Structure formats: structure tokens, C-alpha cells
């Protein structure tokens, strides 16, 4: 077995071993008390191979990059739309106000004409104090 190890080691240092032979070599070395240096070298390398990253994690979400050019376009369109809508709302309010005033003015006109008409009717009111038609027309002599 020792010869096999020496043969494999020679091949190893020459860089001519296959992965399989390297595996065989390491297994064989484990059962040997000699070859301390080689054993400790392979032991070190194996131990280093167990080093793992600890603070690495799977990225969670895809970060969507907002194109600032489009963002400014979108912002200006939004501002334009908002001011247009606002202006329209204001206009509408103004129109409603105007219509209301016009209607109120019309009512006021009707009201004052009605008042004038009622004044004319005042005369008729006095008629009720006359008790008969004769009195009214003075056809009966007293």
C-alpha cells in the first residue's frame, strides 16, 4: 500500500493525477501513520473547504428602476391634468353661481311687479264697506 501511495504522490506532485486518483490517495493516506506532512496539507485544504459564507442571502424582490426621464414626463402630465380639472371645476362653480343670481333677479322682478299689481287692487278692497248695490250706485233715495 505504501508503494501505491508513493507512486500516487509522485504523480500528484507532477500534476498528473486524475481527480479519482487524488481521491484514492487521500483515502489511502488516512489509514497511514507516515506521510505526516502530506496528511496535514490535505487536512488543511479540506478544512478550508468547509468555510461557508454566512451573511449572504437570496435577494428578495426585483427592484424596479424608475427612469427619471419618464418620471418627469409623467409628473408634468399629472400637473397639467390636475390644473385643467381644477380650472374646469372652478368654471362650473362660477357658472352655477351666475345662473343662480340670474334666477334670483328674475324672481325679484316678478315679485316687484306683483306688488305693483296688488297696489292697484287696493281700491277693490274698499268696495267691501259698501253694503248694498244701491248704496254703491246711489239709486235709492233716502
Amino acid at each position, binding site marked *: 500500500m505504501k508503494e501505491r501511495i508513493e507512486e500516487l504522490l509522485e504523480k500528484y*506532485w*507532477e500534476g498528473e493525477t486524475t481527480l479519482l486518483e487524488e481521491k484514492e490517495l487521500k483515502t489511502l493516506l488516512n489509514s497511514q501513520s507516515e506521510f505526516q506532512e502530506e496528511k496535514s496539507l490535505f487536512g*488543511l485544504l479540506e478544512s*478550508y473547504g468547509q468555510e461557508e459564507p454566512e451573511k449572504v442571502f437570496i435577494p428578495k424582490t426585483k427592484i424596479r428602476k424608475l427612469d427619471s426621464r419618464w418620471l418627469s414626463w409623467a409628473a408634468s402630465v399629472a400637473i397639467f391634468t390636475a390644473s385643467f380639472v381644477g380650472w374646469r371645476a372652478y368654471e362650473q362653480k362660477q357658472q352655477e353661481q351666475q345662473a343662480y343670481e340670474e334666477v334670483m333677479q328674475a324672481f325679484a322682478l316678478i315679485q316687484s311687479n306683483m306688488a305693483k299689481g296688488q297696489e292697484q287692487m287696493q281700491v277693490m278692497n274698499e268696495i267691501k264697506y259698501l253694503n248694498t248695490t244701491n248704496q254703491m250706485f246711489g239709486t235709492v233715495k233716502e
Partner: protein
Amino acid sequence: MKSFFETHIWPKRSKLYRLVYLWVRDRALAEDMIQNVFEKSFQKEKELSIHPNLSGWLVKSLKNEVLMHYRSSKKLDALDGIEEVQADEPVNEEVKESVRKVMILLKDLPLKQQEIFQLREVEGMTYEEIADYLEVSIEQVKVNLHRARTKIREKMIALKERG
């Protein structure tokens, strides 16, 4: 259903982490770099799902991330590579003895040899896998692995003689 990221990229994190660690020798920094590249690859899932060499892309992105980090912190000029800042020993004190020893063992090797040595000896990858990973030819992998092993052997002999 699991996403492409979870099935194809996430399982690569340990090997990638150790490779970045080899470059920066700083756990926290290596983790940051991995996280940054993971965020980017998560955004590009669709594009990457048809990429012919996903590992190669990830390694290249990580190397760029590390270079950018060093350049923005003024540790590197635009033309320098990672070799210029690679620390001999781990930056953070709290590190396993084995990790420290491996880093010291590798420190005098050119970066390419360190990378290939690590991918072969620690990760147990084939020549083809290493070639894809680092985007070099298989011939390059073989030559550099041979050189790296020769140097490590010399180091071991020197250590042995010193006792």
C-alpha cells in the same frame, strides 16, 4: 417554483465565496462582494439563464466588483490587479487556524496559480471546470497547477528541514 437564481446561482455561493476570500482575505468584504453580484445576477436572471458560461460570468463579475471596490477606496490604480493589494494573511483576526495556514502557504504564488490550486485541491474541480471558471485554456490550467504544486512541495520540504 424555484427561480433560476435559486437553482443555478445560489448553489454556487460557497465555492465563489472561497475564491473571493482568496483574493481579499477578508470575510466581511468577500460576503459583501458576493451579495452585490448576487443582486445584479438576480436582476439579470433571464439573460443569464441562456448564458453559455454562467460560472465564468459570475467569477468575472466578482473580480470586477472587487477591483471597483479597491479603486473607489483608492487602494488600487486603474491598471493594477488584485495581486497588488492581496494581503499575505487574513485581514480579520477571527479566522480558523486552517484558513490562516492555507493563506500563508499560498501567499508567494502568482494569483493565477493560487486560484487554480484552490479550485483543484479545495473544490475538487476537473481541468475543464476550472478552465470555464477562470476563462483560461485547459493547457493553462494544467501548467499552472503543476507549477503551483511544485512550489507548495518545495515549501513543505523547506518547512520540514527547518523542523
